[in-house]
């Protein structure tokens, strides 16, 4: 009886939620097909065209609208996100592994690690910039900003791996030891394949968080801008639909990353299912 009321209400709510989530992106997507070079970033669409996409790739004849100054930023952001992903995931796996056995002061260390994702990014960025000035280190996206990105994303990777290890049955590792296999080889041959779904999630978190990190990078990255900073920079001059076309393209790139993640995840979940069946028996 109650479901007859609750169901429509929940569907409307879900619909609204999705509308707010994807509405802005749809608007950007539509506007990116505005005619160029005279069409602006507003409705109505004067004429449908792929002019701005061509503009993004430098395929249009020269016009008064300069190419987007963001390509170097894109390269930097991808490199930075990749470096951050690798380092944070490795650190996350290692520290979560350490937390499998309780050690002296483990509670305190846990909170100190997790604090890295709680503290306001603007303050951390500013603080690091000040420290770098005092110590005399140049601020760079691959140095100071990289450190902050790791500090920020490492706790996420750590928490993901902690959850994975929490329900990990360590008797398979003991079984490997009792067969004469060293702990290091056991980790490589048994533990790692079994925690791989978690490692993938940790990597995805670290990459996406670093890829569009803004506040910390703003102060810490120095002269060379990362992608979010470069995009923000273009807003201060004049907005053309080419930035929308670029937005659509990067979003498609993110979706393809997610697709890769989904494929890898399905493969390892199929394996995890076997584990579950084994535990049930």
């Amino acid at each position, binding site marked *: 009886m109650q479901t007859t009321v609750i169901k429509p209400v929940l569907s409307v709510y879900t619909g609204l939620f999705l509308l707010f989530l994807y509405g802005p992106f749809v608007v950007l997507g539509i506007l990116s097909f505005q005619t160029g070079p005279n069409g602006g970033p507003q409705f109505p669409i004067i004429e449908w065209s792929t002019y701005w996409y061509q503009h993004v790739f430098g395929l249009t004849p020269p016009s008064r609208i300069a190419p987007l100054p963001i390509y170097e930023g894109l390269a930097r952001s991808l490199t930075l996100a990749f470096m951050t992903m690798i380092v944070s995931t490795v650190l996350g796996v290692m520290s979560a592994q350490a937390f499998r056995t309780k050690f002296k002061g483990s509670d305190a260390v846990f909170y100190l690690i997790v604090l890295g994702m709680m503290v306001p990014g603007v303050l951390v960025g500013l603080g690091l910039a000040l420290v770098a000035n005092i110590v005399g280190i140049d601020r760079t996206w691959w140095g100071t900003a990289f450190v902050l990105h790791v500090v920020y994303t490492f706790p996420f990777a750590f928490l993901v791996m902690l959850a994975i290890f929490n329900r990990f049955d360590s*008797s398979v590792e003991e079984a490997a*030891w009792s*067969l004469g*296999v060293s702990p290091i080889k056991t980790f490589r041959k048994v533990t790692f394949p079994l925690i791989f779904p978690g490692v993938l999630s940790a990597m995805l978190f670290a990459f996406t968080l670093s890829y569009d990190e803004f506040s910390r990078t703003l102060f810490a990255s120095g002269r060379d801008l990362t992608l979010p900073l470069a995009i923000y920079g273009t807003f201060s001059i004049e907005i053309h639909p080419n930035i929308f076309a670029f937005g659509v393209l990067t979003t498609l790139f993110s979706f393809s990353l997610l697709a890769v993640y989904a494929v890898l995840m399905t493969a390892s979940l199929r*394996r995890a299912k076997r*584990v579950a069946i084994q535990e049930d028996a």
Partner: protein
Amino acid sequence: MTDVLRIEGLSKSYSAKPALFDVSLSVADNEYVSLLGPSGSGKTVLLRLIAGFEQPDAGRILFDGNDIASVPAHERGIGFVFQNFALFPHLSVYDNIAFGLVNRERDPLTDENVLRSKIMTMVDLVGLKGLEDRGVHQISGGQRQRVALARTLVSQPRIVLLDEPLGALDANLRTRMRGELRRIRSQLGVTFLHVTGSETEALAMGDRIVVLDNGSVGQIDTPDAVYNRPISPNVARYLNCYNLFEGAIDGNAFSNGVHRFPLKGALWPNSVPAYAIRQDLITVRQSGVSLADGEAGLTATYLASEYTGAAFMYFFKAADGHIVEVEGHLSHRAPQNLDANSTYQLVWKADEALVYG
């Protein structure tokens, strides 16, 4: 016989709660020792200490005469079979069995042909033929048990520790695997130390039985001796086939205030006086008949019975409130028709009881 494994004064506590205290025992070469204890008696802890998964607080573990207390688990060369089998879920049956030979630190096997023939021999021995390429999730519980065993045995350890290896199997499979375990062991001549919570399993499997009692060794002896002459009331209790009475020695009788049983035969030294009579040594008679010479007995109210196939279990309530269990084997006793809530005389030979005091 030489001892493969000697344990001397082993102790282990968890946050000041003792799990094992001063455990000493030895296991001979080519011997099957079962380790019996109720849950919480420390039997799994003992096994984990021997395997090197955990460190003892005190005591020595001698393997082939060498103290291995500080040797890491993967260098001990002691096999371990887990209750949940702990198979590698991401590997096939074949790769599970090959895992130790290929990946071990000490002289790993690299010759593919030698490896294959070793594994196929083992697959044959444990009866897994034709299943080598299956994933470990695609086989039954009993087959997984065989994989776990094969994986351990193929690297030819001198001794294999089995932690309730049959506990995860259903009843008829368990009985079959008991025979299999014994056959495989004697064929390979490897020493087994088998932990179990089931007294029937311990009695059926072991050349000797070690009974663990609250973290200490209660008794070490042959199954026959443990079954017929448990050394203490606790050991008798774990065997699950004795009726136990607590009380005091009073002249030439044992008394708990309500019942008096005449003493015949030896008295077993124990700090707590107790009287034990095995369930299948008791006969049920109509009440009112007096006891013959050399007999002990009590009157009790019949409650219920339970049919177990080859035997009947009868449950009585004695005058002191004690539940007395009587086992009647149908091969030498016809099933008795007893009236519920009627009083009967339970009788046994006084010299067949065990008295501790």
